[in-house]
């Protein structure tokens, strides 16, 4: 059952002129959240903006004894709602509803895990990496951004023992180009006998390209999709994704059937 809290802002870390991480005191939601789940957030009361916005749970905040005290969201400023989230001040109240949606299926050794993130699509991979590493899964993060300055939290993933493969569009850090290029090469080089699960989150074009290379190399791939979402509860039918099932194509609500979906069933444009 989802929980709705008027969560106090306990921190707001600006990462760049567009990206920020907002820490929210929502311990019950944090304690219940599984990797890949999301929350619906509304940073202001009243009618403008009216609707909540979906965000992956980025970090589970814990006290010194490991008890969840809250969660954070990774946001990119693109409109009025994300501007409010960028500008939020400590002690402000933010409505947080969650945890919502179907989480990632977390693999176990000997299966290796490769996470593919583009830009703000990094968001669901902190909690996933924690879960994978806690099980001893060999984990790699393929992470692409526009510039090196927008590759965030690399130290966190290194500290978790995650191998990094970085790309930037301007070549200022890692390999120049898109993140799917090194993924494709590494997939081609990998023995077909070595089991592997792919996890992807990022822009639609990146997800479609990831799904293509995963299929070409016969690897399963779970993608976390992002759609315009009205309610997060299955009520409004706005966040649908066309998916193959039972010989046809059906519009599936990504809020309750997802946001984590099987890449090979999605009909990519």
């Amino acid at each position, binding site marked *: *059952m*989802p929980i*709705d809290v008027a969560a106090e802002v306990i921190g707001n870390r600006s990462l760049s002129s567009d990206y920020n991480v907002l820490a929210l005191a929502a311990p019950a939601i944090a304690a219940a959240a599984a990797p890949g789940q999301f929350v619906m957030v*509304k940073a202001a009361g009243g*009618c*403008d*903006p*009216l*609707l*909540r916005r979906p965000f992956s749970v980025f970090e589970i905040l814990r006290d010194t004894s490991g008890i969840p005290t809250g969660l954070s969201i990774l946001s990119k400023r693109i409109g009025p709602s994300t501007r409010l989230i960028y500008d939020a001040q400590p002690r402000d109240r933010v*409505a947080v*509803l969650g945890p919502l949606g179907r989480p990632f299926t977390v693999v176990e050794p000997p299966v290796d895990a490769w996470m593919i993130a583009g830009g703000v699509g990094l968001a669901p991979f902190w909690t996933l990496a924690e879960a994978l590493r806690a099980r001893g899964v060999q984990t790699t993060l393929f992470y692409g951004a526009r510039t090196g300055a927008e590759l965030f939290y690399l130290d966190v993933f290194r500290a978790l023992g995650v191998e990094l493969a970085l790309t930037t569009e301007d070549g200022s850090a890692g390999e120049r180009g898109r993140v799917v290029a090194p993924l494709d090469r590494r997939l081609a080089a990998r023995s077909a006998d070595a089991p592997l699960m792919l996890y992807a989150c990022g822009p639609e074009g990146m997800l479609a390209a990831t799904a293509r290379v995963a299929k070409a190399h016969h690897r399963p791939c779970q993608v976390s999709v992002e*759609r*315009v979402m*009205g*309610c997060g*509860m*299955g*009520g*409004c*039918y*706005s*966040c*649908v*994704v*066309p998916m193959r099932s039972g010989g046809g*194509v*059906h*519009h599936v609500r990504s809020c*309750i059937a997802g946001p984590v979906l099987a890449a090979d069933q999605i009909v990519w444009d």
Partner: protein
Amino acid sequence: MDLAVAIGSLHLKNPLIAASGCFGYGVEYADAVDLASLGGIVVKGLFLAEREGHPAPRIVETPAGMLNAIGLQGIGVRRFVDEQLPELRARNATVIVNVCGTTLDEYVEVSKILSDAEGVAAIELNISCPNIKEGGIQFGCSLHGTHDVVSAVRKATRLPLIPKLTPNVTDVASFARAAEEAGADAVSLVNTFLAMVIDVETRRPKISNIVGGLSGPAIRPIAVRMVYECRQAVKIPVVGMGGIADARDALEFMIAGATAVQVGTANFVDPFIWPKLLDGMRDYGERHHLTRIADLVGSLDTRKKDHAWTSS
């Protein structure tokens, strides 16, 4: 205060109804809301067959509102009866089904299937969806069409029959009259207002269907006016909706003439809104010494203030 209201033979424990298209099939919200605590729930519109609806993007936010063109995606009436209705029945929900059709025969057929099913309390006749070409709006925008479809379904079912009216007409009250004359037990209004949002940078529409239906607090004053006009025009009950976001909004519709109210868009923002709305109504009832909320219906005081001061 007694919160019960009656819409013909349909008795509701309170006037709060979840609006069609805003509450899925109800089961989606069963973990968040005690479905039996609502006066009723109107499930998402159903045709005979399954429909996939429009491609995304299907909604866009607007000032104090939202535009949607879902395209009546739905599982079809038979799957609803088999797969969803048993759970709704087990949870003691008062189930009102929004019935769609592309032809008179389809409206009749869907209504018959629901009449034979166990656990349907009433039918809301969708003659007002603005988002699909062949989905009832051709009935709902013509007085003859409205009369014909209500008459045909009236002959096919004894369930309480509530045509849902579109506001996209010149005189909505005349449509309420046509529905009443054809045997409707009540009318519900308003469905959404046809509207449009354009991205000026790309010059593209913000939703795939180009146009869609506007809902939310932005439309509320227009909806209240239309409920008021219909209340004046017909003797059957009026179910009011359009941008209700708190108890005061609901009470406003009731004072204008609504016997019951539906809440849609606000449920997207706050799925836990229902007990808050009920508490707000009870508070109001205490402050105003009401014994029955039904006494509030149509109680709008239009006397001139001067008159009220000077008359003895």
